[in-house]
């Protein structure tokens, strides 16, 4: 087993990894940019190395500085977390060459699964369903028309050269196809100077469902069930849960087997996630994430397994601690990602200093956090602050627990989307598990906080003001400032 691990990341995920290392008796090395000198992950680690200026490419993405930090501190392994270098095959390769264990899959696997078309080909070869679509642009309308009949309506026309919705048309019936084809080609021509289009099956209300896998270096591969991550804003997940209300035991078995087959076919090692879209009971391969996911805690909660511990054991050459039949998930877990952003202003980032922080507590509540009271949230990195995870015996109880926990989560000084998350969690849609990837866009945009307890807030303000000690300017009229005496002042001459 490793004696010392360097964590090439920051924020909540670095703190989370450090905690498991400590429990395993492994020493930890944090790395940090000049903007993160006082970040929580630096304070939690046994030692820390500054790896450069605030800009990510000069610090958290800087191969040389990170490798040098590992060598100087004698770290035998590097955990990349998520984001930054976690899916960079060149960095994994560099670690391999330097004789440092990269806690993740081999560089060759990261490379082949990172190439989306190659990943799609690997999946097709192992009979994992992919979204039906043309492999190359259509030659003419007749080809489009034939193909649409083959895969069935609705279909979506997409520009081969572009993105951003340009040259994209959703076609629900054959009689619309020709006119929409013509306008898509013309729009693509204008936007990209290339009118080539192709056809894909259109999934109207897909759910995002993914399978967690673990694979060791001895050929053992297991899956740990699914996570549903349909609640997204700007194509980024914000609420995740396990199990999914849409996945039956039979479907779980099918999807799990597909993910295990995909892992075997690609020579996978360590923890990974196979992502699918699920539409009307049919699942389609999306991509493989060759790293620990942000939302991994929901799986940990229901499976009763520490995924980071497993990652470290696998990287050190140990076989999996569990076989497939040992995996017996129970209960229900939900995660809310807490971001420094303004839900009333299109989720724009809201950096600044956290002036007050109080985290929720109680049975079944877990907070994976990278912040503290007084911490200034840097402007250069992902605005994730923490993750709130709840665990309960079933889904309705988990929803109630999440509502309770969010209502206890006070973060002041910057804006967060906690009030927005509360509205989503207590909506009818979410309660019934009626979720799809565009739910936020379709039904929660734009969003404004309701007036809620504004009256109570006003009373709280008045009481707070009148209880302020020596606030100078704020003395209430006539000099009758109400002064609050703390219990310590009225206690008398007690011995403490």
């Amino acid at each position, binding site marked *: 087993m490793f004696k010392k691990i360097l964590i090439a990341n920051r924020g909540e995920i670095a703190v989370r990894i450090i905690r498991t290392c400590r429990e395993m008796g492994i020493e930890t090395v944090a790395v940090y940019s000049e903007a993160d000198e006082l970040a929580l992950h630096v304070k939690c680690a046994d030692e820390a190395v500054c790896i450069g*200026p*605030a*800009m990510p490419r000069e610090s958290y993405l800087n191969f040389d500085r990170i490798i040098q930090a590992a060598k100087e501190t004698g770290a035998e392994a590097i955990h990349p977390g998520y984001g930054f270098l976690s899916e960079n095959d060149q960095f994994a390769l560099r670690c391999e060459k330097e004789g440092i264990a990269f806690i993740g899959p081999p560089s060759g696997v990261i490379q082949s699964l990172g190439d989306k078309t190659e990943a799609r080909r690997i999946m097709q070869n192992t009979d994992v369903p992919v979204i039906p679509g043309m492999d190359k642009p259509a030659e003419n309308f007749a080809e489009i028309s034939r193909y649409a009949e083959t895969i069935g309506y609705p279909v979506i026309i997409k520009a081969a050269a572009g993105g951003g919705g340009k040259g994209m048309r959703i076609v629900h019936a054959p009689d619309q196809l020709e006119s929409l084809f013509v306008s898509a080609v013309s729009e693509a021509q204008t936007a990209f100077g290339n009118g080539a289009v192709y056809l894909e099956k259109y999934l109207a209300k897909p759910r995002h469902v993914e399978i967690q896998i673990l694979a060791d270096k001895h050929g053992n591969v297991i899956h740990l069930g699914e996570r549903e991550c349909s609640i997204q804003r700007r194509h980024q997940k914000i609420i995740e849960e396990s199990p999914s209300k849409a996945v039956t035991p039979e479907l779980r078995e099918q999807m799990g087997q597909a993910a295990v087959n995909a892992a075997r076919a690609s020579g996978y090692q360590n923890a990974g996630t196979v992502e699918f879209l699920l539409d009307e009971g049919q699942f389609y391969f999306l991509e493989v994430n060759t790293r620990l996911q942000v939302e991994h805690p929901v799986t940990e909660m229901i499976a009763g397994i520490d995924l980071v511990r497993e990652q470290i054991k696998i990287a050190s050459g140990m076989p999996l601690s569990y076989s497939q039949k040992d995996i017996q998930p129970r209960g229900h877990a939900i995660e809310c990602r807490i971001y*420094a*952003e303004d839900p009333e202003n299109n989720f*724009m*980032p*809201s*950096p*600044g200093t956290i*002036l*007050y922080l*109080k985290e929720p507590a109680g049975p079944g509540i877990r907070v994976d956090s990278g912040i503290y009271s007084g911490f200034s949230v840097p*402007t*250069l*990195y*992902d*605005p994730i602050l923490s993750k709130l995870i709840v665990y309960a015996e079933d889904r309705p109880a988990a929803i109630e627990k999440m*509502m309770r926990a*969010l*209502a*206890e*989560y*006070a*973060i*002041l*000084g910057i*804006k967060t989307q*906690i*009030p927005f998350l*509360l509205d989503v969690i207590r909506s009818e849609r979410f309660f019934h598990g009626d979720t799809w990837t565009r739910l936020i866009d379709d039904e929660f945009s734009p969003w404004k*906080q309701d*007036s*809620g*307890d*504004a*009256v*109570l*807030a*006003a*009373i*709280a*303000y*008045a*009481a*707070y*003001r*009148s*209880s302020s000690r020596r606030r100078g*300017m*704020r003395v*209430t*009229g006539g000099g009758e400032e*109400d*002064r*609050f*005496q*703390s219990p310590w002042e009225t206690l008398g001459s007690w011995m403490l």
Partner: protein
Amino acid sequence: MEYSLSVNRENMKFTVVSGSSPLSGEARISDDTYGFIARRISDNELFLTINGRHLLAYLVDNGDRTEIFLNGRTYSVKDQRDADRRPKRRGGPGEQEQKITPPMPAVVIRILVSEGDAVKKRQPLIVLSAMKMESTLVSPYDGTVKKINASEGQQVMPGLILVEIEKAPEEEHGN
């Protein structure tokens, strides 16, 4: 004691009559009366009993407002008395939009103009990044770049004028 507050941009006027102990009283808001007892737990925590119901409020003073967290929602409270004491901001609405300053703490990614350049209204001047999102500040009017107060890679705060533009003399309308 009369209060005139703005709570999340909603105006609220009410009266508080202090009771016998310093931190109890009655608040009269519209036609409703709320009896309250408050105990200050710390600088940021207030334990309230309002009409017999317990409530924990968390508060911070943040510049010109007080932020209050109650039951999962944050309320931004501005006190009219404080606003009256502050010097009024000069200039009408729209003036602020004419200043080339970041809307939030950000990092300068690219500067697209040089001092002395003639610029057109809405011409991009500077690209900023805040938390992985890029945004572009544009010139508010036709003019000349007088001064650039930032460099690429620099962290900048709201209020700092990044690019100073000397406005070109008004042209005849109708173009």
